[in-house]
């Protein structure tokens, strides 16, 4: 889907990128944070609060505009903010290990004792994909669009697609407990975002994420600087890159299918053994980006926070996304104010995106009213004893 997006969008890339300015990016980032919070929990206030907790955490460290230190409590470790790896590993991996360990059952408790047959697993996986073609298509479109927008990244694409699939599903209660649609939606978006991310990267040299930033460096090293020249004089190279990406996806799937049974066995391991191992791996991972022990403390604190807030039905995805997109929201807001003044809210596309946020928050009111109306329509026959 991403490669298709790359192929189809290249002729229109300039027009689209000109339409999406800093004001629209600000509104889109805000929509991303709040949408994920609301879509991944049952309660609007909990969803919005989750996003805001993430946004608040993102303001720790130096201000991206003036460099003023905020909420650092004088600690030099906080000058660059909290470690992204530490926060993410804590909120997801360590929090989940606390839950699994306290529960005393393996992650896949229901599957313990069952045989892991690779061929039947592959067949089942293919059947699930065939049954969820619409989810794949939607995930692909979301991934391509998000990948296209600079600075949004793969995590945003995955969570948006997951939230969308949950919203459309007939069984949203199964999400978070191994619902296959959730996995398909997130993975479809994750794969598609690379193709979408190549569009601004190659056409304007604006990276869609950190991987694309490294990719731009590589393009300069091999003498193919991204921009209009690459698109005009070496267009065939752009298509080579697209096809390489498609081939990489197929090879990745083959390797993944080969490793799947081994990975599945991990989910059947007793939680008493699995939890210490995964916590040790997470702790080691928490220091990889900053190379300071402070990342470990951040991961442990985020682990406790994630466990507690998940128990109370807050959205860890919302917190993470708020944390990742906080600096984007702040930077784009100031650029927009400098460029357009406070009128930036009235730009048509920005206004449309902000209206979507309002709709998202107001949606439960309408759903509740509709439910009440439906209940009112169904109630009289059952009161008269018509029920079987």
């Amino acid at each position, binding site marked *: 889907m991403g490669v298709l997006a790359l192929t189809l969008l290249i002729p229109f890339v300039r027009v689209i990128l000109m339409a999406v300015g800093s004001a629209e990016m600000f509104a889109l980032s805000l929509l991303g944070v709040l949408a994920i919070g609301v879509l991944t929990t*049952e*309660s*609007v*206030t*909990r969803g*919005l*609060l989750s996003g*805001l*907790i993430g*946004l*608040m955490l993102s*303001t720790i460290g130096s*201000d991206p*505009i*003036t460099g*003023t230190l*905020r*909420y650092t409590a004088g600690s030099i470790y906080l000058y660059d903010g909290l470690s992204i790896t530490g926060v993410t590993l804590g909120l997801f991996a*360590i929090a989940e*290990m*606390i839950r699994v*360990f*306290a*529960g*005393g059952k393996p992650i896949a408790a229901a599957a313990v004792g069952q045989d892991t047959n690779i061929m039947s697993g592959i067949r089942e996986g293919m059947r699930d994909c065939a049954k969820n073609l619409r989810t794949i298509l939607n995930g692909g479109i979301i991934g391509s669009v998000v990948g296209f927008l600079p600075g949004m990244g793969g995590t945003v694409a995955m969570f948006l697609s997951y939230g969308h699939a949950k919203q459309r599903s007939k069984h949203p*209660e199964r999400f978070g*407990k191994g619902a296959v649609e959730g996995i398909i939606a997130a993975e479809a978006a994750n794969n598609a975002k690379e193709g979408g991310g190549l569009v601004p990267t190659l056409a304007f040299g604006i990276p869609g994420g950190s991987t694309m930033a490294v990719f731009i460096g590589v393009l300069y090293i091999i003498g193919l600087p991204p921009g209009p020249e690459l698109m005009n004089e070496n267009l065939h190279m752009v298509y080579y890159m697209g096809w390489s990406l498609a081939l990489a996806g197929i090879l990745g799937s083959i390797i993944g299918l080969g490793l799947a049974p081994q990975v599945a066995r991990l989910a059947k391991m007793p939680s*008493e*053994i699995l*939890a*210490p*191992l995964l*916590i*040790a*791996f997470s*702790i*080691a991972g928490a*220091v*990889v980006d900053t*190379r300071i*022990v402070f990342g*470990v*403390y951040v991961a*442990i604190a985020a*682990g*406790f926070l994630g466990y*507690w*807030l998940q*128990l*109370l*039905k807050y959205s860890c995805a919302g917190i993470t996304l708020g944390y990742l997109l906080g600096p984007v*929201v*702040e930077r784009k*807001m*100031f650029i927009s104010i400098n460029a357009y003044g406070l009128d930036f809210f009235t730009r048509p596309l920005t206004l449309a995106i902000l209206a979507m946020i309002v709709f998202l928050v107001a949606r*439960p*009111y309408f*759903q*509740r009213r509709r439910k009440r109306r439906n209940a009112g329509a169904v109630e009289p026959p059952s009161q008269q004893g018509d029920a079987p």
Partner: protein
Amino acid sequence: MIKRLDHLTTLIILVIAAIYTVNALQFPGSAKVVPAIFGGLALVLAVIQLVAPRIAALKALGGELVIDDERDLDVFRDPLAQRRLLLISASLIAIPLLIAIFGLPIALPVYVAGLLLIQRQRFSVVMACTALISAMSYGLLVQLLAWPWDDGALWWLFA
């Protein structure tokens, strides 16, 4: 009980949001704008979450906690689950102490071995898991990241 803890958590969020907003207003120039907006919004939402279950018009916002999976309540009902939660929490809190004593590359295998031994796992399991984490720790931290293996207080004493 969980509902009371939920209210308490919302109150804590409210207090943190209030402190955060008050602090934000003390930052110079434009540095205060975004934190003040985030903090102010969090404050309003926390108040709404507290009062929403009591006000009919706000009920649709879903301030009330709904537990859809009974297993989530195990930690409040099952003494064994509570003991396990206590054990994993204590072990996580002990990690910074282990790092201070042994240094990160050695603290990780010590942590895994300690937690498995406390649970009276089979010796072969303890050895296998400790060996796996030691190999990961050595390969990733010492070899790839050039992390000194002896940066704990214990090794300084010997030095």
